[in-house]
């Protein structure tokens, strides 16, 4: 854990910050695709579970990306 949130949450938020200038849906697609191509399955599953839990630490774009990711897996 770092800063009170799991590392994968922090990483997802950092990725999302890079695409904050893009429209939300567009950003979520890019983020989800990045996660799909570069993250280990356990991290992806953990992120999806975290997003489903309704935790507020996940940025809106990252949360949306997690939902996209769930659909893509």
């Amino acid at each position, binding site marked *: 854990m*770092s800063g009170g949130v799991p*590392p*994968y949450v922090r*990483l997802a938020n*950092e*990725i999302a*910050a*890079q*695409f*904050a*200038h*893009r429209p939300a849906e567009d950003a979520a697609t890019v983020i989800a695709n*990045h996660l799909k*191509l*570069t*993250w*280990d*399955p*356990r*991290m992806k599953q953990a992120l999806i579970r975290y997003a489903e839990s309704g935790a507020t630490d996940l940025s809106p774009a990252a949360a949306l990306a997690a939902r996209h990711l769930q659909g893509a897996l």
Partner: protein
Amino acid sequence: MTLLKEPDFGTPARPGEATVALTVDGVAVTVPPGTSVMRAAKEAGVDVPKLCATDNLEAFGSCRLCVVEIDGVKGTPASCTTPVRDGMNVRTQNERLGKLRRGVMELYISDHPLDCLTCSANGDCELQDMAGVTGLREVRYGSGVEAGANHMDLPTDTSNPYFDFEASKCIACSRCVRACDEVQGTLALTIEGRGFDSKVAAGAGVPFFESDCVSCGACVQACPTATLQEKSVVELGMPTRTVLTTCAYCGVGCSFKAELRGDELVRMVPYKNGGANEGHSCVKGRFAFGYASHPDRVLEPMVRDTIADEWRTVSWDEAITFTARRLREIQATHGQGSIGAITSSRTTNEEVYAVQKMVRAVFGNNNVDTCARVCHSPTGYGLKQTFGESAGTQDFRSVDESDVILVIGSNPTDAHPVFGSRMKQRIRQGAKLIVIDPRRIDLVRTPHVEAAHHLELRPGTNVAIINALAHVVVTEGLVDRDFVARRCEDFETWEAFIAQPEHSPEAVADICGVPAEEIRAAARLYATGGDAAIYYGLGVTEHSQGSTMVMGMANLAMATGNIGRAGVGVNPMRGQNNVQGSCDMGSFPHELPGYRHVSNEDVRDIYEKLWGTPILDEPGLRIPNMFDAAIDGSFKALFVQGEDIAQSDPNTQHVFAALGALELLVVQDLFVNETAKFAHVLLPGTSFLEKDGTFTNAERRINRVRPIMAPRTGKQEWEIICEIAQAMGYPMHYDSTAQIMDEIALTTPTFMGVSFAKLDELGSIQWPCNVEHPAGTPIMHADEFTRGKGRFMETMYVPTSERSTRKFPLILTTGRILSQYNVGAQTRRTANVAWHAEDVLEIHPHDAEVRGVTDGDLVALSSRVGRTELRARISDRIPVGVCYTTFHHPVSGANVVTTDNSDWATNCPEYKVTAVQVDLIPASVVADAVPEPVVAGGNR
């Protein structure tokens, strides 16, 4: 077997077509205009006697041995300084010339100790050779101590750890002085005095060690006598055989002649035909090889059940059986994905390939990563996204044709010194230099080199400044529209993005701390100054926006048309010798060899058929993920090949916690390093002197690494990997290293034509090597990008979350020093410690003053995650608010304070931005002048 003597043509080659025809001693020869008579003679097979001339230095014309007769020319001109003319008729030998030469030799010999039989250069002395060639039989002026006034009582300077300067044997030919100027570019040597009083001096007559000399050894190599001689030759005698191999230090990848007596390495001599170094070297490559025979080397396997136990020395069989059994037990208990491996950029391509194959085919997962994760993973990502290939675009030679050189976050003279010398020579010829770095690196202002612009930006603001440079290019009409239209895609979207006012120099000036007008001037120079090349290093990649910055540089190069020919490009300066190769070999958890994604069914199919086992189609864990998963409990065993992650990786306490949580840690290394303190199995590795294989350097050049001695451990590292695989039930076997390369070539398109036989034939090969480019590809993306069209990427500047505060008001950034290498495991075990015995903290005089810190004080360096102690060095090389240190010594352990922030795309750690505080440790508290070492379990 005799030493490999490369032919010396006396003066450098001249470029161009051979159109000037002349005759030398009746032999017709045609050479390019500007060629010296001496070189033309050599081309014709005629050796003209010489002492001051050698073909990596411009002609000097001082020794007068090379005099010749030329029809129609009065007197006897020096052949080295006389250029050829069409129709010239040259005579190099007759009675008159012989008499002249013997007269010159008599004068030399009259002032030279005649101790040839006991001289360290006996058999390798050009003065001795010339005495023979000129037929010298008597010295009318007396000789040695019988002569009149002479220099034979001059003292020998032994201050340098690696070579002596025996002044009594100096013939004042100036070869050393010129080599320091023309090859190295340091200008540390000079000729002091005039006439008979002329003598070589280092700096202002100080001992070599105290001078500006960087111990590159170019002077030693240039010296025609025993004046400048390796201490190892003085001690051991002349070598008797030579093996060509490749340096195992930085990513330049210098070729060396390893010169031996039996199996004892006497000296390393840079190879003139080495593609990367062309006869030059640095202090590490030439001299710092002693670590290979250091008594700290571990030569037998060691095992222990827990890290609280003492090591047990065991047989190879027991070590391999233990490792294989424990790995399978852990998988049986915790799942297939609970184990993994880290490959090393210090090992060969073949050794790396074997480890990643073990992970994929035997472990059955993709949990393999490489130490490039913590240095150049953003390079791989960023260049793949934009250009389609995870590698730099140029060969080193390309810089000779650059008109503008942009250096960002790289310190070539310290970290890549042989290329740094080449770059300096080009700048001295007139190329303009732009440096973007918080620190005033040597390149900013060094003899006869001065940057046109030094953008002294705040750490962490690279992306803001690269966007501002691109903004100027776009808004001032400096885009190469033709190139962009023909070669690129997504330009319009990017153009609209980058033209936004928030990216203007005026908008980012306060963020970066660089005046807007300075940014504009640098952008204009880059875009309009001719062929412009970008060279960058870890000062780009090791940020939370490292990948963004790499893409930003690619955008800038594409927008200005600076891609696809000599003199331009985007060039990562790779830190370790085989960073490029370790990445090429499929060490990333999402990519098979050749940067092909694991989800690609066609690619998996190649390996599945060849290896006879399924390959997982999902990415595995990266190194930081492995650490997190170890702490969380889903990752239980790690195989570490030749890396000291406990010292090199950020946030030391986090790494310690992860390593301490593992049920099995297997370390394959030369020494019991910091990581091995957490290990259950230590498998002794081979030094580069024992390895057989290849390294791939920063310019994609595959170089052969040839063993000069049998492995001191009894096994090559790839053999150990195969035996572990076999013990785990997988039939992995190779007869030789060449066979591994054959498998790489068979399965990886960019290596299609590579083989050991071809490497032996060509010397080296820059990949891609394939049907279209059978001899390799020095310059990439010449006609089209690897991905077809070059892709512009939007590069939003997102500031790092690491901020300075009142509690941590300074920003720490890190880097390297010339004499040390990476975590110092090798160089700390050589005499290089004479230059850098400990890491120090550079701090600006103002920041030091307000803290009451003076030069040499012991200070506490604290961040949000840790604290260590270092000596302070007051320096205005860095701006106010920034401090700097190196990471070569575990005692200081700079990574105790670095955070676990990382690049968003690749997890490359943000080593370059850590908010810190520096506090003076009062003398009364300093019980011991040496800081406590960082040890397993922490020191705080």
